[in-house]
């Protein structure tokens, strides 16, 4: 397990250390909540807006703006939900926040609830994370006993009742409207937006939904101020990003890097590069819903704008390295099968498009497909990306479309025409 450099960043997670409430407070924890409660919420919201913090779950929506939308809503019953349904394959950063620094998350959530005017909240944790659920349950209890949750928090007028809500094994519930349906006891199927959850969320009430990593940023911003925060990272993307690094690199694990470092630095400096004697063939950035890009693109900076221009999805910050012995087709097929399993079946492009994509890749791998099938695969990919109902369906086509762009030759090499050509050359 690799460690982040010993800078004063946002999380500074030490793999070998769990911070309990007492230790967290000794290190200045909960001073941000006290500070926020002592001031007009508008001041703290301004601080979060100025910090430039954006949603770290994948959508990168400006967090301060989202809180402001809740604040300005005339409906008084409001909810806060922490999205801890970390299901993106290749991602484990939220798990480490929950198991190592749970009180930084609970403090951030409490501040966000105060600023948004929410008095009831849920942390939606996936069922596959029983350890995180246990730690958070006891953490919530400890915070209630210390007067940091529940009624009259830190002696103020502010109340927040917080509950842990367990998922039940559905990737789709990481999509915020599907998550709402799940809490309401329905199938975790996405809803049409608008209305956005900030307008009509849980039980139809305005709801602030934020990712674990996003909320855990907030105590540092309130405590040290937006100008301190903006010293880390870049002008376009302030702060840090937690990176889940896996695959064919020497050091796999969790990293905290300031925005602005390049993907090459992450893979080679933090990750130690590919195993000895191997080279990098592709890097999958953003998990199963992310893209496969060639090593030439790794000089791109980890930054929202630069990545958007290069067609790279930062997503949850999962980085998965493939060395030169790996097959692009089998890796992309793994992603396609994952989405096929997780598709809720509501819309045709996602449900049927993925099924056909899987069939075509099968056909290619069996050596029975032709160049025409690759064209068909491209057409279906466009349909999945452009016509799926929800963001997850649209993102399901990313690994297909990026690999068809950068590794088309590998698809074509499996085609009948090219195999015949190759075998003729061999016999000649």
């Amino acid at each position, binding site marked *: *397990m690799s460690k982040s450099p010993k800078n004063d960043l946002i999380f500074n997670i030490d793999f070998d250390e769990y911070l309990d409430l007492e230790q967290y407070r000794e290190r200045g924890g909960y001073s941000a909540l006290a500070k926020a409660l002592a001031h007009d919420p508008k001041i703290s919201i301004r601080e979060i807006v100025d910090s430039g913090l954006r949603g770290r779950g994948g959508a990168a929506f400006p967090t301060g703006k989202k809180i402001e939308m809740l604040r300005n809503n005339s409906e008084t019953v409001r909810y806060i939900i922490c999205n801890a349904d*970390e*299901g*993106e*394959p*290749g*991602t*484990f950063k939220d*798990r480490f926040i929950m198991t190592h620094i749970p009180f930084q998350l609970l403090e951030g959530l409490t501040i966000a609830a105060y600023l948004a005017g929410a008095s009831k909240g849920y942390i939606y944790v996936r*069922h*596959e*994370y*029983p*350890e995180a659920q246990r730690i958070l349950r006891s953490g919530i209890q400890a915070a209630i006993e210390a007067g940091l949750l529940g009624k009259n928090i830190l002696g103020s007028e502010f109340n927040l009742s917080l509950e842990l*809500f*367990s*998922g*039940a*094994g*559905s*990737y789709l519930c990481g999509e915020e409207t599907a998550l709402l349906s*799940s*809490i*309401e*006891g*329905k*199938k*975790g*199927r996405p809803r049409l937006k608008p209305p956005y959850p900030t307008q009509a969320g849980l*039980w139809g009430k305005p709801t602030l939904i934020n990712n674990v990593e996003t909320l855990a940023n907030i105590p540092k911003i309130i405590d040290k101020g937006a100008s301190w925060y903006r010293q880390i990272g870049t002008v376009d993307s302030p702060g840090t990003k937690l990176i*889940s*690094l*896996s*695959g*064919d690199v020497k050091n*796999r*694990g*969790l990293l905290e890097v300031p925005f602005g470092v390049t993907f090459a630095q992450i893979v080679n400096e933090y990750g130690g590069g590919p195993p000895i004697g191997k080279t990098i063939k592709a890097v*999958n950035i953003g998990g*199963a819903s992310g893209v496969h890009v060639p090593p030439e693109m790794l000089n791109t900076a980890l930054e929202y704008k630069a990545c958007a221009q290069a067609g790279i999805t930062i997503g949850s910050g*999962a980085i*998965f390295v*493939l060395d030169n012995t*790996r097959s692009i087709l*089998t*890796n992309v097929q*793994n*992603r396609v099968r*994952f989405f096929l*399993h*997780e598709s*809720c079946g509501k819309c045709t492009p996602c449900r049927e498009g993925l099924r056909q994509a899987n069939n075509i890749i099968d056909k290619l791998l069996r050596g029975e497909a032709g160049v025409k099938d690759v064209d068909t695969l491209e057409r279906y990919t466009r349909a999945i990306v452009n016509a799926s109902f929800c963001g997850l369906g649209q993102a399901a086509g990313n690994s297909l479309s990026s690999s068809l762009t950068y590794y088309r030759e590998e698809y074509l090499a499996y085609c009948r025409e090219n195999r015949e050509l190759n075998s003729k050359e061999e016999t000649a």
Partner: protein
Amino acid sequence: MKNVDVQDIINRFDNDKALLLPFLLAVQDAHPQKYLSEKAVNEIAQTMKISRSRVYSTASFYSEISLKPRGIHLVRVCANSPCENAGKALLLTAIEQELGITVGQTTLDGLFTLESVSCLGACYMSPAMKIDDEIYGYLTPGEVVSIIQKLRKEYRNEQIA
């Protein structure tokens, strides 16, 4: 076999709004075979005053809820790319041979159910699997076989004692 007291479980929930999903998980957890039986579904529907189809609709959607009886130990092997590239297929073959079942099945003695699972968030120690609440990583086929044998031995010793 001991019956699951659905009413008793719902009484433990003090929500102003009864939430279906935590209720389903609690009833499943209370069943020795970790699943929702038809009887339990009927009782849940009656207790919550909703239709049985509503209960089934929700229950059948989620991978972690089973409508089939399962074994005492749930063995779940991660199927996603990081684990697949790290040798998941070899692990699965070793487990299938050791247990004599394939993914989705339960051993005849009712001790193990083998499932395939989406990312366990343990990619840094791939290939990974989860047995009940514990995650195992950096696995080799030999290791998974000895973990299973150890659990089987523990169970037999408990039966004798």
